[in-house]
């Protein structure tokens, strides 16, 4: 990357986004517990919304980290977040209703140790490294948990490994047709990993604006939610999956059109089939 990144000036402070993202994500993921309380699966889409809150927070965390000159690419930070986050999330699902909280705590510990290793053992000496890696690990685990809750209706271990397979018209339980057994956890992993680093990577440049990046983060989140909703059709009942699809499509359409408007606002020029403008001296 030969683009210079400056420290954040103005806009909403990072710690506000941190607090808002953490609280919103946890609350929304917990709202999927309403599935258990009401005995339906209609509230699964809250998991996706929780993941989006975490993705928005995550894009800003990556911006915060990279503005201190990390030296290597942006996508690596996303992969680090999810590599550590998936481990914390899977361990936390054993703890029943407390799973999201346990995920946050465990991911914070893992992130802190990884941050210490990067900053001190690997001598990177970036001021916000440890805090950023803690945030990224928490975000990774929350996004994974949100997508898992959206696909299966719950964030506890047993639903993640439960699935049905129909043989000759009969529905039989099968571990192979589940979120973990079928490998859909890998899709959630990659969806989140790319969605978290794309907003900052795509809005990189001297005219970076915070509201445009955050809008793009929401758009990436809703786009991922569309894919997750389609995949959830195999695991939860069709009505709940359709609710998820509709929420995701509406949210995506709104954020995408807003993002295009914001890009139009920020761009130097918005030309259609015009030649390259001539600059003096070139």
């Amino acid at each position, binding site marked *: 990357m030969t683009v210079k990144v400056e420290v954040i000036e103005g806009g909403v402070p990072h710690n506000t986004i941190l607090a808002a993202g953490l609280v919103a994500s946890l609350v929304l993921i917990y709202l999927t517990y309403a599935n258990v309380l009401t005995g339906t699966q209609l509230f699964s889409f809250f998991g996706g919304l929780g993941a989006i809150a975490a993705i928005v927070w995550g894009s800003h965390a990556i911006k915060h980290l990279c503005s201190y000159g990390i030296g290597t690419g942006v996508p690596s930070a996303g992969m680090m977040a999810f590599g550590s986050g998936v481990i914390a999330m899977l*361990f936390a699902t054993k703890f029943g209703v407390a799973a999201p909280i346990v995920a946050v705590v465990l991911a914070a510990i893992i992130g802190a140790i990884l941050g210490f290793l990067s900053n001190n053992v690997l001598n990177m000496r970036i001021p916000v490294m440890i805090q950023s890696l803690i945030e990224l690990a928490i975000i990774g685990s929350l996004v994974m948990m949100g997508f898992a809750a959206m696909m299966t209706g719950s964030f506890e271990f047993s639903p993640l490994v439960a699935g049905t397979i129909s043989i000759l018209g009969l529905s039989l339980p099968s*571990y192979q047709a589940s979120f973990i057994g079928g490998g859909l956890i890998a899709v959630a992993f990659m969806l989140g990993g790319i969605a978290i680093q794309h907003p900052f990577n795509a809005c990189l440049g001297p005219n970076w604006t915070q509201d445009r990046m955050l809008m793009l983060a929401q758009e990436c989140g809703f786009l991922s939610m569309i894919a997750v909703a389609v995949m959830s059709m195999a695991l939860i009942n069709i009505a709940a999956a359709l609710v998820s699809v509709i929420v995701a499509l509406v949210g995506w359409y709104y954020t995408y059109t807003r993002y295009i408007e914001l890009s139009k606002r920020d761009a130097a020029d918005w030309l259609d089939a015009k030649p390259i403008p001539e600059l003096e001296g070139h």
Partner: protein
Amino acid sequence: MSAIGAKPAAGAAMDMPSTIAGIILLLVIIGATYFMVGPGLMFMALIGIIIGGLAIAFGVHFVPVGGAPAAMGQAPGIATGVAMLAAGAGLAGLFGGAWAAEQGLVVAVITGAVGGGLMMAITCMFVTFIYVYGMGIPCASGKVAKDPITGDTQPEFKSQGTEGHGLPFVSYVGGVIGGLLGGGGGTLIYIMLLDVYKEALPNMMQALPAQVLPIAVSLAGIFAIGVFLVNSVLTAYNITGTIEGPHDPKFKRFPRALVASAVASALCGMVAILIVAM
């Protein structure tokens, strides 16, 4: 190795106090796991995961990566990110190793290693092919005057205004070794976790081993990929972006990456094992 005080930018020196703290942390994690699961399959799995992580971290240092300048013929190496190229080779190796899992640990790990090495060998050969026949550019290193393996002189084959280009033979060999170590390390982590899960999941989920096998495979697979990515990103941080191969002076930084990778792998491995142990 000199222990200079806190530096403002990533230096090549090893920070001894932090390194020692890291090693202590590693021993604490190993000790805690031993305390919780006792000697046996699970503890051996943790040791295996640490060794796998070390292999990955060491292997990534061998892979020649030139980054954006390499895409313009300005620097030697492959024009891709180091973490992702290593992950690509390692996962291709993991694919082969997972297939051979039922043939025993040694065969599976070596199969995985050969798979990773094969992918790097073919990729590096095609990189040289494109540079020589597609772009008319010979291979030249910017960091050494003579190739350590073949003895070919480098400076006169370096075009003006560049730092070298292509893949000198030592970089090619480095790439293959990196693929071997990455594929082997990733497969080792996968097999260790697979054995632990095959053993413990039937109990935990009250089901037959054959039924639980897909869960064990997927869990072990996604954990192996997660640990692999964490290790390769940490090593990418150590290399700070680009490296020409084992002959590059940056290669000498590998000891601190080994410490960092050991701790990170131990931590992730401990959590992965505790999922079924607690």
